[in-house]
Each structure stands twice: as structure tokens, then as C-alpha cells.
């Protein structure tokens, strides 16, 4: 009995040791960023090792005062939220149709939607540039909204669809015999039942949109449409050289809200990621 208990506590200890090491490995860059971001610039580029770092808000003041960071932040938030909204408005009815009705070519349409995700974005970069130029949308957050929405639409549709497939058909049949129309069934029965899936899909789309770089760089050419991720790139060039502490601080600030949201919904998130992939 005693030996069983001992080996159990031992294995528990080993488990925590491994998990702790893994967590440290993952978090170290984040902590490093924070530490770099909160130190004066000279201290960062010095070749001698520093054992007791100096705390400084230089970078903090710099990003808000020397750069239009507030504008970048606003652009990011608007473009991302707008794109997620577009995705949900389009994906929910599409997912409903794909999960509930049988019609010719349904599975092909479903696969086509998913396949848009498989393509390397660079392939369509040039056509998209001309497309937005002709529409006069270059360098606007509207273009960013549309492009983020387009990039994420497939994954959002697919995740919501997988949640909808889990809803028993009986539930809709019941609503129909109770006198509900298709729209009311979608609105009052289906959407509330797949709300965790919708939230998951929205968060995943948000994360992808925050990280989106290629298309943003293509479309945004002035601070009018710069987002946080592209603004970061601006700290590397110019007469000031590479401004490491500002880069680190902005990267950290972009990371925090995503991290908090992911922690809040992590239970749903793993399901959303696997279900979208597995359920055929």
C-alpha cells in the first residue's frame, strides 16, 4: 500500500516537473520580451552581460508618443472585429446548410470551402492586390476586413458546421412541429445550441487575423491602414535602426489580449480545433 502511494506521488512529481519545464520553455520568450520591452535601449544592445536590469518605460512612451500606435491599435481592432463579424454572418447560414440539408454537390461545396484554406496565400497575393486597387480599397481598413474575413471564412464555417452536426435532428423536427419556420429554428434553436462553437470559431479567426502579415503589408501602405503586426515591421528600418525594446513591447501587448481570451475559452478551443478537422 505504502509503496503504491509512494510511486503515485513520485509519478505526480515527475508529471509536474515535465509540465513545468514545458511551460517555462513556452513562456520564456514571452518573459524575455517583457524584460526587453521594459529596459532602456542602451542596455539592450550592450555586448556585456547585465545581471540586474534597469527598469525603464522608454519604449512605452516611445510607441505612444513617437508613433501613431493608438491608430494602429484602432485599425487592428476594427479590421479584426469587422472581419470576424463578416465571417459569422456568412458562415452560420452556410454551416447550417452544409450540416442540415441534402442537395446535389453539398459535399463538394463543403470541400471547396475548406480547400481555400489549403492554398498558399502568396499565390493569390498579386491578383488580390489588383482587385483591391481596382475597387479603390487599397490602404483602407475595409480591405483588411474583407481579406481577413476571406482568409478565415473556411475555418469558421467548418468549425461551426461540426458543432451543428452534433445537434440531434429531432430537436429541429420538434421545433418544426411546434410551428417554427426555418429562420426561427436557426435563430432560436440552432444558434443558442452551438454558441460555444461560434465563440470558438470567432476566437480562432481573431487569432489568425491578428497574426496576418502578408496581405496587410500588401494592402496597407500608410499608417491609415497599418495594423499592429505591420507596424512592428516599421521598428526595424529607418534612421533609428532596429528598435528592439519597442518591438518587444508591442509584440507583448499584442499577445496579452489573445492570451487572456484563449485562457478563458480553452475548454472549447481544443474541441473546436480538433472537431473542425476530424468530422467529415
Amino acid at each position, binding site marked *: 500500500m505504502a509503496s503504491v502511494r509512494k510511486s503515485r506521488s513520485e509519478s505526480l512529481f515527475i508529471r509536474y516537473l515535465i509540465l513545468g519545464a514545458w511551460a517555462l520553455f513556452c513562456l520564456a520568450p514571452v518573459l524575455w520580451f517583457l524584460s526587453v520591452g521594459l529596459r532602456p535601449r542602451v542596455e539592450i544592445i550592450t555586448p556585456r552581460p547585465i545581471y540586474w536590469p534597469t527598469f525603464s518605460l522608454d519604449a512605452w512612451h516611445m510607441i505612444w508618443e513617437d508613433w501613431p500606435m493608438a491608430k494602429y491599435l484602432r485599425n487592428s481592432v476594427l479590421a479584426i472585429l469587422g472581419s470576424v463579424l463578416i465571417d459569422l454572418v456568412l458562415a452560420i447560414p452556410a454551416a447550417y446548410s452544409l450540416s442540415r440539408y441534402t442537395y446535389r454537390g453539398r459535399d463538394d461545396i463543403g470541400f471547396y470551402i475548406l480547400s481555400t484554406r489549403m492554398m498558399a496565400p502568396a499565390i493569390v497575393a498579386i491578383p488580390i492586390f489588383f482587385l483591391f486597387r481596382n475597387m479603390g480599397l487599397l490602404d483602407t481598413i475595409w480591405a483588411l476586413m474583407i481579406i481577413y474575413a476571406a482568409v478565415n471564412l473556411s475555418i469558421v464555417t467548418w468549425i461551426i458546421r461540426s458543432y451543428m452536426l452534433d445537434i440531434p435532428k*429531432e*430537436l429541429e423536427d420538434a421545433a*418544426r*412541429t*411546434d*410551428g417554427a*419556420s426555418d429562420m*426561427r429554428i436557426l435563430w*432560436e434553436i440552432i444558434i443558442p445550441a452551438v454558441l460555444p462553437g461560434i465563440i470558438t470559431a470567432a476566437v480562432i479567426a481573431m487569432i489568425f487575423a491578428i497574426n496576418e502579415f502578408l496581405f496587410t503589408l500588401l494592402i496597407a501602405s500608410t499608417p491609415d491602414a497599418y495594423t499592429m503586426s505591420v507596424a512592428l515591421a516599421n521598428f526595424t528600418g529607418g534612421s533609428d535602426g532596429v528598435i528592439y525594446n519597442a518591438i518587444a513591447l508591442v509584440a507583448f501587448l499584442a499577445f496579452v489580449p489573445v492570451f487572456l481570451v484563449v485562457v478563458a475559452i480553452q475548454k472549447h478551443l481544443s474541441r473546436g480545433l480538433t472537431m473542425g478537422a476530424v468530422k467529415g
Partner: protein
Amino acid sequence: MARIELSGIQKRWGNVWGVRDVDIDIGDEEFVVFLGPSGCGKTTTMRMIAGLEEPTEGEIRMDGEVMNEIDARDRDVAMVFQGYALYPNMTIYENIRFPLRMRDVPAGDHDRLIRQAADMTELTEYLDRKPSALSGGQRQRAALARAVVRQPQAFLMDEPLSNLDAKLRQAMRVQIKHIQRELKITTVYVTHDQIEAMTLADRIVIMQSGAIQQIGTPDEIYNDPANTFVAGFIGAPPMNLIKGQVDGGIFTASGITVDGLRSDMSGAVTLGVRPEDCAVTQSDANLTGEVFGVEPTGDLTYLTLKTGDAMIEVKADRSYRRELGVDEQIAFDRERLFLFDAKTGTRLR
């Protein structure tokens, strides 16, 4: 409230048959039970009445009006599903209210109607709960309350009690029948449980492989089965069906002799006799067999006899006890013997 007629109903998906041939006229206020083994087309038939499935052939009429083209939401029927199908995000109160809202019942009447339905199904104290916080029996009653709340033209119930334990099932059976009698609403009820069918129905419709085998009152179905399928489906244990020969009014099979039958037949037949129409005897036996099993249940004893390659079930007296392997003699109640065609299984009258 409504008379429901199904004529020449068939349902096919490609070459998969759901229902081959259903003809029935269900009277106003009648309680009709569709009874049959799993996969025989009961649910499909009910879904066609509800408008959730369109018949491939045939006509469905309610009060004389053809319903085939009418959408489920425009048919005034309420359905209780096998899995209850309660809306998981709504409280029981909102669940019961849903059909009232969808059918534009004036909002001022909702509360009164909901409380009335909840009272009838003894759910008043659970109205604020979500379905997930209810037991199986309570969920079942909530589904029932949602059906009764709007006083539809007809109730459709698809194996509503199959997920409940035996004791609860008996209690709910009584409750369902009581509510139906009180509201006087035409009811179609589907089950694979013959006890449910016998106890609830005004008329039973027995189905097999998508076709109706017999329609009749519980008494007719029990006392006058149309074929071996019906005979074998009703009763617990079911009727003994013994293959043998009849000639000159005498039936013979290994270990079994029955005389005094109709003398105008000869050839292979199946003799049917219910376990409750068999009696242990010392003289004038029809059957001699080896005791294979003795199962006391308290109020009576099930006796299984082996004769030739047939097993015969007998309901014996509650005090009956016997060693396995000894010989026992059985007499049949001659008034209650049934003869069936050996090949087709249809009753020979």
C-alpha cells in the same frame, strides 16, 4: 378533434423501403397504437403524419383534407419524440411556451396555459430548470407538457416511454392515457412494447417490415390473431407455435396430440396455444414433455417443457415446483387453439 386517414401509404428512399403499405382510418378522439419490432416503419409512418417526411405514394387526410403537401409547421399536430427533444438552452417554462409563441397564441394567455400544462404533468416546481437538470421521467413529462399545452388536433408519440425504467413506465402509461381521455385528442402512439400497446390502445395496428399485419382492439388482437406474427408478438411469454400435421381433425407433432379439431383440413399446419391456456394435468394430456425450466415469479410459475425439438411455455400455478428432467403432462384449452397455415402463417379459420 380530428380524424386521420392514411390510404395506400408507401415510403421509399431509393430502393430502401420504410413503409410498404399502410391503410388506416383513425377516428376522432381515438387512441391508436402502432406496434411492431424495431425497423418495421412505425417512426416513418408517424413522421409522415407529422409532415416531417413526405410519402412516396398514397394520401394522408385530416378531417377529410389532403395533407400531403402541407408543411409540418402548418399541420396542427404535436409530437413527442423518443429522445424528448427538449430545447437545451431554454428552461422548462420556455420549452412549454415555445409552441405557443410559434403559433401566435396571444401572449396574455401563455402563462395560464403553461401552468395548466405543467400542473397536468406535475411539473410546476421544475418550470425554472433547464432540461439537463431533470431526471428522465421529468424530461418525459416536460415533452408531454409541451405537446398538450396548445391543444392540437392530434398527438403523435414516438416510443415516449422507452427510455424510462419499468416502474416509471407503468406510472407514465396511466398518466398518458388519463390525459388523453381528459383532453379528448386523437392520439397516435408508437411502441415496440406489447404491454404498452395492450394497455393504452383503443385500437392496435400491428406492423412488420413496413406493412400492417392486423388492426383491431386489444381484445381482438389477443383473442383473434390474424397470423403467426401477430400471435407471436402479443402476450408474455408469447403464444406457443407448434409445427405439425393435421388430418381428420387430429393434430400431431412429436410428443403432442390434439383431437377434436376441424376435420375438413389436412397437411402441414402450425398450432398456436397461449401459455395461459395450457394446464398441468394427470389425465387427458395433449402433450408430454421433459421439464426444461421452472421459473417462479411470485404470482405464477413459468414452466418450459421440451418435446421433440419444440419448447413449450406454460403458465403454471404459483406453487408449482418440479425437478428438471422429469416428464410432465399438459392439457390445452380446446376452446382457445389456433391453426395457422404452415407456409404463409395466415390463420386458418
